[in-house]
């Protein structure tokens, strides 16, 4: 039983123009996307900038309105306001943002920032609330004295941890983490990722981890999907995607990750150029006439791995075996 299911989600933005400002076309930020997240799982969503990955996250949380499609939570469609209220959806789904400075109100103290969601959804006395905030700060490894400080007094990693504490404060079931570590240094990134894993274990929270960093997603997620031009090109487990990529776009993305072994340098470059050449040569075969990504097809018998491959390439893996 999945905690949340996104079905045929479309988010199109109209392009207006002409004398009467009529709709001339659409930017298809998200175009017919399906995904489901299991309880206690971290689901990875990878894409380059402009691929529409953040739009999916925002639509799930409710910051963007879907053009079509549905988001099923506890068996009901939460794109309708009435259901959201009934299911306490806004309490159960929280978000962690990329830029920790601009997502924390600079004029509020940490105490008020973390307590804000609690005040919205629960009625606690002053002392109970204080106690909760201290608890939350403790979970993310921040000293208690930080309650009375302002966001600017903290470093990037600490602010991101405050963001996590705020997201966890209402005991959510799902947290959408939109590039939570991409602005952080390596060692700080490790710290934040560790805290995310701790919290997940402690409260059985599901994460939707949106990132462009394939290394981070590989470390955190069992299932993931790769996205470009508003569509999924490949969906599967981490082994499926990292060990047996099928779509040319995935291959290209994987080939572009720098390897930390300097001895492999030459081979990596060669491999990268080969994939790049392949991408340029048969790019047309992988997209339809309107440059739209093809529909997902199963590419292995395992029932987890899907890729947007052309007709002739589907079930490649099986054929090869």
């Amino acid at each position, binding site marked *: 039983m999945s905690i949340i299911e996104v079905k045929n989600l479309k988010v199109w933005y109209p392009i207006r123009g002409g004398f009467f400002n009529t709709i001339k076309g659409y930017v298809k930020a998200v175009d017919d996307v399906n995904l489901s997240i299991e309880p206690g799982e971290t689901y990875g969503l990878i894409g*380059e*900038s402009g691929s529409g990955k953040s739009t999916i996250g925002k639509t799930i949380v409710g910051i963007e309105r879907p053009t079509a499609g549905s988001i099923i939570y506890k068996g009901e469609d939460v794109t309708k306001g009435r259901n959201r209220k009934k299911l306490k959806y806004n309490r159960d789904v929280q978000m962690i943002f990329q830029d920790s400075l601009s997502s924390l109100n600079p004029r509020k103290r940490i105490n008020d920032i973390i307590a804000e969601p609690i005040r919205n959804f629960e009625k606690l006395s002053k002392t109970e609330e204080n106690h909760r905030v201290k608890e939350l700060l403790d979970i993310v490894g921040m000293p208690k004295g930080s309650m009375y400080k302002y966001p600017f007094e903290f*470093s*990037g*990693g600490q602010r991101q941890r405050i963001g996590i504490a705020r997201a966890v404060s209402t005991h959510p079931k799902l947290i959408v983490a939109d590039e939570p570590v991409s602005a952080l*240094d*390596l*060692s*700080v*990134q*490790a*710290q934040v*990722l*560790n805290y995310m*894993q701790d919290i997940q274990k402690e409260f059985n929270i599901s994460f939707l981890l949106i990132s*462009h960093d*394939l*290394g*981070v997603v*590989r*470390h*955190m*997620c*069992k299932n993931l999907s790769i996205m470009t031009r508003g569509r999924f090109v490949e969906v599967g487990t*981490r082994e499926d995607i*990292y060990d047996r990529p099928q779509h040319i776009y995935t291959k*290209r*993305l994987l*080939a*572009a*990750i*720098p*390897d*930390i*072994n*300097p*001895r492999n*340098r030459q081979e*990596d*470059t060669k491999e*990268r*150029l080969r994939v790049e050449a392949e991408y340029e040569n048969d790019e047309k075969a992988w997209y339809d006439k309107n440059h739209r990504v093809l529909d997902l097809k199963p590419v292995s018998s395992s029932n987890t791995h899907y890729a947007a491959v052309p007709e002739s390439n589907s079930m490649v893996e099986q054929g090869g075996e």
Partner: protein
Amino acid sequence: MDKEKDNVLLEIEHLRTAFRINGKFYNAVDDCSLTLRKNEIYAIVGESGCGKSTLATSIVGLLDPLNSKVKGSIKYRGQELVDLNADEYDKIRGENIGMIFQDPLSALNPLMRVGDQITEALYYHTKDSEAERKKKALELLKRVGIPDPEGTFRRYPHELSGGMRQRIIISIAVACSPEIIIADEPTTALDVTIQAQIIDLLKDIQKEKESGIIFITHDLGVVAEIADRVGVMYAGQLVEIGSVFDIFEDPKHPYTRSLLNSIPQAGELGDRLHVIQGNVPPLSEMKRSGCRFAPRIPWIPASAHEENPSYHQVGDGHYVLCTCYQTFHFQEEK
């Protein structure tokens, strides 16, 4: 010996760059020495706040003279750069030393056409006529892999994508075929596929012009991909210097080892990542004596550190600061 001397492009010795904070000067770069040779990509890696960018801006002399002080020596082919005045620096900057910035949008002038920004460098540093400059600029645009040089020449920066903008910056930096290119986080703002293309381009240009590149980054993967020599920077000091193989295969300094250890690897799902305790101290609170990394590895006894850390040679061209590397172990190993 002469040949060796000929190969040395840039020699930095005991460089100290200080910034004024509340009326007091604090060293952001504290006693850094490095030598850049011809045909070499020298990567400087470290976390934010370690002084990497300050080192770069000191070399090209772009620091505000009122609020900063540069001491020590930076020699470009034997010529001292530290004491130069603004006019003298202008002659070297662009012609002999090119600079690539991190954010290509803020480094380009939004009100000037891209082509004019490339020819501007040629205007100041060569005696070419206008037609020649344009011809050269078009060649440069083609060289950095821009599909439609003629069209792009007339465009404004906002009309181009991030990768294209970074290519423009590179073409400006190499317009006068400088011997040294300083690249300050040139790929940080880009997607991985674009990053790979830019890295390949930089490597090609470096080979073609036989220039030396100082490549500043915090991404160890990029370092492994591009660098010949690596300097690991912590709290204003180069704590470990060595070839790229030394650093990745036989890292010595606790900081280098900790950094390498905190990269998310392909291991088991849910493995805990290594975390370095504490933070990079802010400039005004930085400890000025002893091993600066000591507060972040408190389980190592004080006796393992040197009182006045000095460089120890551990291999051919491989140097480590402070003696703590000899007894260092990760906390969980014990």
